[in-house]
């Protein structure tokens, strides 16, 4: 895009700046729209599994429900509790929302459809997702209220615990693909198994890693069955209890943007990203963007499915799963995968 703006007679700096801003808008605006639609889809799937109708009043098939909710929230009054730490209370939702959008900069939508094609793409995703904890902790502390604080403590302990095993899982993927660049990881999956299946997931050594990544992703984003941060029965509504109006909506949207990001990471790291599922020439007629979108939507369906069918974990079970099962298993797999790659001369 930079060269296009340069052809209009701009200097390189201006063209680069303008194309970056356009790229950000091109990602952020459709992302916001898809978050609105995905909330609708989540509610519909959940309703269908509970034999209910779900939202069906606003617009055809209730399609405009999210926008109606957004408008309602937008028109509400923002209430700041008098005992709250005002500055941090107002910054916290902004942090959550911004962080949820930032990580999308390195996700490849197509062979060249990526905003920042950086060498440390995967590390960037990890770094940004580790920032997500702050929005939660700040909200819980600044609310100066008992239940949000409990919830924030739970949420941050949960996120940190599962980040550790996610780190080890990603190391397995990086070992096999030999790069931290997300586009490089996608390309490394081309014809990975038998020269025809695109995706690390069909690899018997990486398949268990994918299962653990999916579950860790649910825990990391605080989705059911790991939604202990907003366990209504014991914590009112979690760390955003004291929030109202747009600040609450920022949490809501940020949460769903994070879920979509996890789906995109699942697709990119294990299911071949924008590559078609099989390495057959005529499948490449369909643009990579479509394949990527299909995979993301599939994983979102899985997330909704799990939310609708699996009961909530107990907190000690959650911690046990993270530290006593996932962490040793992923560590073991790092050893196995690197040993296998050394034995087969992958790095030669």
């Amino acid at each position: 895009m930079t060269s296009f703006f340069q052809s209009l007679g701009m200097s390189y700096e201006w063209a680069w700046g303008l194309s970056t801003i356009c790229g950000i808008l091109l990602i952020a605006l459709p992302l916001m729209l898809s978050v609105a639609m995905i909330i609708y889809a989540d509610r519909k799937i959940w309703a269908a599994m509970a034999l209910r109708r779900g939202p069906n009043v606003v617009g055809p098939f209730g399609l405009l429900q999210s926008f109606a909710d957004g408008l309602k929230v937008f028109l509400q009054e923002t209430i700041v509790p008098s005992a709250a730490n005002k500055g941090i209370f107002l910054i916290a939702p902004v942090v959550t929302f911004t962080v949820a959008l930032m990580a999308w900069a390195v996700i490849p939508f197509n062979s060249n459809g990526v905003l920042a094609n950086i060498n440390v793409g995967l590390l960037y995703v990890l770094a940004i997702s580790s920032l997500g904890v702050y929005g939660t902790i700040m909200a819980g502390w600044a609310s100066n209220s008992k239940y949000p604080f409990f919830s924030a403590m739970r949420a941050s302990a949960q996120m940190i615990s599962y980040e550790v095993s996610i780190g080890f899982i990603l190391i397995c993927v990086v070992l096999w693909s030999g790069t931290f660049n997300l586009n490089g990881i996608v390309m490394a999956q081309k014809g990975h198994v038998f020269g025809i299946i695109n995706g690390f997931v069909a690899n018997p050594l990486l398949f268990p890693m994918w299962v653990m990544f999916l579950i860790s992703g649910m825990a990391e984003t605080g989705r059911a069955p790991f939604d202990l941060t907003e366990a209504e029965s014991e914590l009112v509504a979690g760390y955003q209890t004291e929030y109202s109006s747009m600040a609450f909506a920022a949490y809501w949207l940020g949460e769903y943007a994070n879920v979509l990001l996890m789906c995109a990471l699942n697709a990119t790291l294990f299911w071949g990203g924008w590559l078609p599922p099989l390495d057959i020439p005529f499948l490449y007629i369909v643009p990579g963007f479509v394949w990527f979108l299909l995979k993301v939507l599939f994983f979102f369906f899985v997330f909704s499915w799990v939310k609708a069918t699996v009961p909530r974990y107990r907190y000690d079970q959650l911690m046990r799963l993270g530290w006593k099962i996932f962490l040793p298993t992923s560590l073991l797999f790092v050893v196995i995968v690197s040993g296998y790659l050394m034995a087969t001369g992958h790095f030669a």
Partner: protein
Amino acid sequence: MIHVIAFYLFAVLTVASGAITILARNPVHSVLWLILAFFNAAGLMVLVGAEFIAMLLVIVYVGAVAVLFLFVVMMLDIDFAELRAGFVRYFPFGALVALVLLAEIVLGIGAYRAGALHLGTPDGTAATPVGASNIEAIGALLYSRYLFLFESAGIVLLVAMIGAIVLTHRQRSDTRGQNVRKQNMRRPDEATVNVRPEVGKGVQL
């Protein structure tokens, strides 16, 4: 041009948030400013082309260390009046520390002006290979030349971790732990029982 703007932006923000870290009255605000300082330092690292170090700085310091700081500080119930009460008593000691730091800075600047210290002959063995990315260059050095140092650092960390666990671990007899295996092995037919009590009679369990 854009480099210069970015450098001054990150540098000013790092120094300013570092200063506010010390000046802030609320310890939680202090930690949050410290996080901003870390973040901008990572920005400076990116500017000098050390993107790997920058990402590690964010992941390790912002994502893990600062979260623990924040946890500890939030849990503390700090009484500011009590803190200020000790000010006069500790002032001479504080002044002494400040004096030592000032002397060190002056000495450091003097030594810097006098010329660089000769540590060894540059023979190019530690230089970054041309065309390699950050991660490859660091890995090539870390796993060949500095392998022993790298592994011993790992062992030091392991010892520290075991030490922390040993120091804080205590056997508690007053709590009832969950036996997850037993819970998982339990089947519905042994957990529930169907009874049809007669009218007016209770159930004996």
